[in-house]
């Protein structure tokens, strides 16, 4: 079993580390096995490299979400294997998978999914709290820095229902990023946002990718948004049909 010596702490060594952040190996996910079986993804091989800013595109039902869930250890392929920073997660139990998600993976959801009883500040802080091993002083510093980057300093004490969709999604990005995960996965992060806000959010993600070397994989239907990506992976019927890298 190959293990990576690198921890989740800082994905600054982009390009240097040859081990992919996450790798899908012949991943197949079958729903309703038998007559009406659906192969949500079918023999997908995908390496996400450190520092990638990847868009997953494809028609509805093509398997974008399923790929993201597999990459994020939220779902287990029926066939094939998932490696996170070199660690084979296929045989891990629920708690161990939770641990992998906790330390190495950040999620951004289509409908933001902030904890409604927490303020913007607390939602971001909560992520560090679950991570553990972060001193209160460091936590304060990291959350405040994140709020500054997101431009949410004034709104930090508001609860999600007092924030606009774009603001909520910024908080969600902060929540995912603050723990410095190996990879951030975003399933249609802009689907509930208007055009301008969507550009904003993707711009913010891109900036994080460039400035902080954070690795992003996001799915989208939006042709405009995929132009921001540096790598575009296209899915059709659960299979990868193209994988294009663009020059920076």
């Amino acid at each position: 079993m190959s293990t990576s010596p690198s921890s989740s702490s800082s994905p600054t060594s982009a390009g240097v580390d040859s081990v992919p952040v996450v790798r899908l190996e012949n991943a197949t996910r079958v729903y309703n096995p038998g007559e009406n079986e659906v192969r949500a993804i079918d023999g997908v091989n995908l390496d996400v490299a450190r520092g990638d800013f990847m868009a997953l595109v494809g028609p509805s039902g093509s398997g974008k979400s399923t790929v993201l869930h597999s990459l994020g250890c939220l779902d287990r392929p029926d066939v094939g294997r998932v490696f996170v920073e070199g660690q084979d997660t296929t045989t891990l139990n629920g708690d161990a998978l939770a641990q992998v998600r906790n330390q190495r993976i950040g999620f951004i959801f289509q409908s933001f999914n902030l904890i409604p009883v927490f303020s913007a500040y607390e939602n971001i802080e909560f992520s560090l709290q679950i991570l553990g091993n972060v001193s209160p002083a460091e936590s304060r510093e990291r959350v405040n820095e994140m709020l500054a980057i997101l431009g949410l300093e004034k709104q930090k004490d508001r609860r999600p229902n007092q924030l606009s969709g774009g603001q909520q999604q910024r908080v969600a990005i902060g929540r995912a990023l603050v723990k410095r995960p190996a990879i951030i996965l975003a399933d249609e992060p802009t689907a509930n946002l208007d055009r301008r806000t969507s550009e904003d959010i993707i711009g913010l993600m891109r900036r994080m990718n460039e400035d902080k070397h954070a690795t992003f994989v996001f799915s989208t239907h939006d042709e405009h948004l995929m132009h921001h990506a540096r790598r575009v992976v296209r899915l059709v019927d659960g299979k990868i049909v193209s994988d294009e890298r663009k020059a920076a």
Partner: protein
Amino acid sequence: MNFMLRMAFRNALRNRRRSLFTIASLVLGVGLFVAAKSFVDGIEMTMVSTQIDSEHGHLRVVTKAYLLDEDYRPLDVPFDDASAVAALFAKTFPTAQVESRAQFMAQIGDGVRTLNARGLVVNPETYEKMFRIGALSPPPLGEGGVQPKAWAWMGADLASAFGLKVGDRFFVKAKTRTGTVNAQDGVILAGLLQSGSAMTDNFTVIVPSSWGAKFLNLRREGETVDYATEVFARFGDPNDAEAAEAAVLDAHPSLDAETWRENTAFVRAFNDIRRQHFYLVVGIILLIGALSVANTSLMAAFERTKEIGTLLALGYRASSVRALFLTETLLIGAVGSLLGVAIGGTASAWFERHPIRLTGLDEVEGGMPMPPLLYFKLSPEALLYGFLIGLMVATVAALLPAIRASKLDPLTALREEA
């Protein structure tokens, strides 16, 4: 941990109406438990202390032979050791009050009717200090400052059955220690006995030894003290009764002694039955409370499926989700239990000071005896048990929904529409 508590606390406030309903149902159950326990404890305590105060003291000593025939209240069973027993108590328990008396079968009448009663020959000055049955004062002097020849005190209910008032006259007839039958006319009713004990209030007539000893031939030629059928002792500490009993039985094998605890075993026995009745009702209410808690918890878990999915995606472990939901319910449970204890306790404390007077309700609850004045007795245990029972109900009720919430698959939970 800090974060989980914060989250749990705010979640508990999220659906206030539901939380309040749950709290209310727990308050009702816990409050009723505290009140019911205090109520029955109060009845038990009142009945036990009435029995001690009016009939039994802390220890009663009789001869074994007397016990066999007690129903006939014989005056001719030898009890030579009575004064020795009194001396023994005085020596071993210097602060003990000791009292002896002679119990006899009395017939009393007003010339029209005759009734059987329990007669007691006592030394009124000391007897009234030992037993709380009302003052045993002699009647006022008659014309020319002459002391009446005979007087007695009678249970208030017995007197009212006769239509006798203080100062009225009646006759007493009894078989004496020597077997003759004596009758005394013109006995003045000097006062009424009021104790809360049916035996005293309904059936007893007390005769002072000043004329009663002679009337019943209680002292024979050569004897220095009046004959007694029983000796009673009352100790500074009621728990001395057992030691005193052992000492008496050790020194006088022919005697039998009964502590107040043995004597009131029946009181505890039927109050235990009464307790069970109440607890059954309280249990049903608590069950409803439990269902309400479970419902609240289940609804919370159901409504927040997507949130649980988010927590799991963020790396929250299943056990933490379970702990979160348990904590939420326990917070509500703790508030409900505390309020229940506070309300039930306050009500019980109030009724401890303001007893409920039962009139014409001598026999309620399927013939179980009740004291005429109902005092509640609030104990720290009632509060503690009430609180713990409330918490336990909440915990048990919360367990299943919490486990269910923690068993959710993260992806399935996330797919749930918000």
